[in-house]
């Protein structure tokens, strides 16, 4: 007995065609949704939990900043905009800053945002101590007192004047609601979406764990008005450039992209912005270790043995700048010319000879009977660089043993606690547009008076540098500051506690039909990732901020 047929052949064919048609229609991505507004798709998954204390690195900060606001914010030209604060003023001695909040600010749960929340935020940060890397925003230093002088007035007093307070604290520290966080003792461990009550332009609708996809939707009651972009979809994509070409995302970012990679985007469908010095890969020596690593002659010889211009050619397809021993990128407005340690293998060998590191068995130099053989801690993603470094130093009799690890605890943790000989770690900056433009970054990274941090040089101490670093932070005159920063760069180039290897060109490609203007924000701290203002104000025709 045969089973009765539910569909005859003709019906089956029609149903199949109908199904295929539905699939085709469904797969046609409609980025501009006429009914609900614009959707932007970004090629990155959640980088940590998007709270101020658990969002990781620069991408995580950008994701968190969609939910939380700061007192001030930078627009596409780098100008500081009134944000939660509609105005501020500083005292003549630059010790006291008074911020006047906007009226009728509200958290996403409808409760009012007041000066008490701002005071609470500063106090709460101060109570946390150092946050685990790679959380970017750390408790601000040098705050003497934060007090509410009314329901919408906050007065912040510093222990000493600091010329980056406005740009790197007031415009970077996310303000959080007291009524949510006051009862939480361990904010780093919070992963409850209900706690993500912010003042930001977006709500987080979907979160699928660290690395997972996220969906943000616009808050029409945002204090600057309904955002231009209504939905932001983020999901991890391994090759954003290929995904952009395939129509799976609306923007893609890369560094040192080859010409053949860029070629498919040279048409009106796509836009492109580029930035020099937005990131670098510095080579760290662990100065805590005795022997060659703490010998400046050894470090100088290493610098001479590495052809930094060739690194640009090989690893960035010629699109970038060679590393500057003074740390700041040549594109940075505070850059000063310093000694460069030009590529010179015989010269490097001679320097090592003069320092007493004689050639030993197997072509490896020795220091008091011990071979010059060092572990190189480096991310898996930088494997080609490690291979070039191994070859470069091998030519002068120095052996590198790469320990290539995933970006994460093995890399960050070991670097932070100084468990390495030499290391290469990605650094966001220090070019003119994007994070760490301000030369105070030199103080943060190299002053022995500053708490050790992930990106800082290990165990470098120079009283002369420390003195200059303190002076420049107190200088509010650009000319005076430039002169001080130039001296700081000279000292760094002489001592070489760290050597930027190269600054690859950073490129953002985007689909112009969705958003026709993207930008790197000059001076934006702490990330050059997508400035949220772009999504709030929208296209070039509508970039005037609504204050």
């Amino acid at each position: 007995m045969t089973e009765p047929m539910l569909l005859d052949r003709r019906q089956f064919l029609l149903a199949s065609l109908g199904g295929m048609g539905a699939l085709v229609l469904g797969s046609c991505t409609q980025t501009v949704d006429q009914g609900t507004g614009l959707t932007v798709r970004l090629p990155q998954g959640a980088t940590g939990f998007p709270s101020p204390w658990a969002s990781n690195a620069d991408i995580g900060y950008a994701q968190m900043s969609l939910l939380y606001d700061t007192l001030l914010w930078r627009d596409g030209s780098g100008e500081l905009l009134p944000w939660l604060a509609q105005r501020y003023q500083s005292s003549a001695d630059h010790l006291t800053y008074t911020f006047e909040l906007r009226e009728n600010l509200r958290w996403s749960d409808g409760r009012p945002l007041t000066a008490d929340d701002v005071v609470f935020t500063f106090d709460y940060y101060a109570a946390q101590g150092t946050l685990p890397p790679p959380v970017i925003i750390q408790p601000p230093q040098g705050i003497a007192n934060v007090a509410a002088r009314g329901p919408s007035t906050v007065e912040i007093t510093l222990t000493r004047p600091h010329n980056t307070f406005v740009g790197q604290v007031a415009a970077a520290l996310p303000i959080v609601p007291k009524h949510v966080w006051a009862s939480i003792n361990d904010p780093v461990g919070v992963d409850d979406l209900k706690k993500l009550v912010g003042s930001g332009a977006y709500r987080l609708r979907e979160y699928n764990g660290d690395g997972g996809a996220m969906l943000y939707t616009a808050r029409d009651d945002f204090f600057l008005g309904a955002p231009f972009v209504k939905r932001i979809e983020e999901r991890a994509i391994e090759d954003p450039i290929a995904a952009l070409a395939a129509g799976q995302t609306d923007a893609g970012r890369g560094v040192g992209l080859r010409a053949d990679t860029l070629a498919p985007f040279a048409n009106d469908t796509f836009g492109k912005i580029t930035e020099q010095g937005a990131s670098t890969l510095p080579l760290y020596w662990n100065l805590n270790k005795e022997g060659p690593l703490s010998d400046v002659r050894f470090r100088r010889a290493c610098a001479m043995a590495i052809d930094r211009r060739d690194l640009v050619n090989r690893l960035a397809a010629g699109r970038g700048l060679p590393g500057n021993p003074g740390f700041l990128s040549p594109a940075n407005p505070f850059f000063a010319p310093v000694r460069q340690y030009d590529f010179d293998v015989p010269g490097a060998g001679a320097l090592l000879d003069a320092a007493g590191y004689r050639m030993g068995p197997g072509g490896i130099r020795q220091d008091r009977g011990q071979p010059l053989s060092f572990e190189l801690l480096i991310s898996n993603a930088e494997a080609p660089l490690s291979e070039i470094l191994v070859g470069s130093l091998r030519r002068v009799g120095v052996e590198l043993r790469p320990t290539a690890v995933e970006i994460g605890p093995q890399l960050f943790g070991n670097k932070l606690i100084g468990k390495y000989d030499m290391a290469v770690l990605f650094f966001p900056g220090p070019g003119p547009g994007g994070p760490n433009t301000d030369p105070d970054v030199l103080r943060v990274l190299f002053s022995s008076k500053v708490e050790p941090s992930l990106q800082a040089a290990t165990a470098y101490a120079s009283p002369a540098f420390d003195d200059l670093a303190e002076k420049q932070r107190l200088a509010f005159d650009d000319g005076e500051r430039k002169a001080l920063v130039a001296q700081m760069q000279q000292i760094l180039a002489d001592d070489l506690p760290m050597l930027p290897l190269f600054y690859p060109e950073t490129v953002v490609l985007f689909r112009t039909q969705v958003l026709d203007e993207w930008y790197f924000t000059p001076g934006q701290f702490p990330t050059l990732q997508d400035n949220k203002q772009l999504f709030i104000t929208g296209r070039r025709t509508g970039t005037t901020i609504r204050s």
Partner: protein
Amino acid sequence: MAATVEVALPPAVDDDRRAPHTRRRRSPLLAFGLVVLGVVVLMAVFAPLLTQYDPRDPAAGAALEQPSARHWLGTDQPGRDIFAQLVYGARASLVVALVAGTLAMAGALLLGVLPALLGGATDRASNRLVVFLLALPGAPLLVLIGSLGLNGRLPILLVIALLGAPPNARILRTQALSLRQRGFIAAAQGFGGGPLYVLRHHYVPGLAPLIAVGFVNWASVAVGLEAGLTFLGLGDPSGISWGLMLNRALAQQSIYFSPMWIWWVLPVGLTLTITLLALTVVGVALEPAFNPRSHTSS
């Protein structure tokens, strides 16, 4: 009345079974496998003669050169010759195949055959250990070890060998137990044959075919596992291996936007695939010839 006596004639002796070496010569699969493996061995042994470049030398050429008379398969991003890496990568695969295969079979003899011959508590304890080791998930264990930073060649080799010992120990133990119960073993012992005599004349010939097949099969698995680990970036990052070559190639941003995958990904992928295929077919081809079941059942 004449009684009819039916005499059961012995089954016709299969030529293949009687002369396995004759059949091996005739098997096209085996021939293919052996030829490929021979080429791989020659590549590994004569690597310095096949290429003038050191596979680790970034100064071999410019970055990402196209194939030319100087660089037959072009260069990678640091400027290393890809053909040199391909040729020298054969060494890594062969070392893994030989060492992991040998260690796995040595472990199998230790865990399977020896306790089976000793019997008693030793055999029971060993059997439990084998069952425990069999329960370990192989690939996740290797990924865990690699991600813990124990990604040198030796730890990886040892773990691959450790994973290969239990399944082979089970097979060898069964055969050893079977041999122990055979009459000819008791007869040999009854006629005064010492343990070494029995081992040499009865156990070794009875187990050797299984050891050979097990070795080839596990060598194939080991090459695949090592390539997989290095492809995932969990192997020795300073080594030269086919898996690592694929890892580096696919880490190249948007490699499929350019034709470079044709001379970078394709040759390595094909070489790896064909080598694995060769090892597999050799194992498959050897199995019927060496499998004791094919001699005893008909």
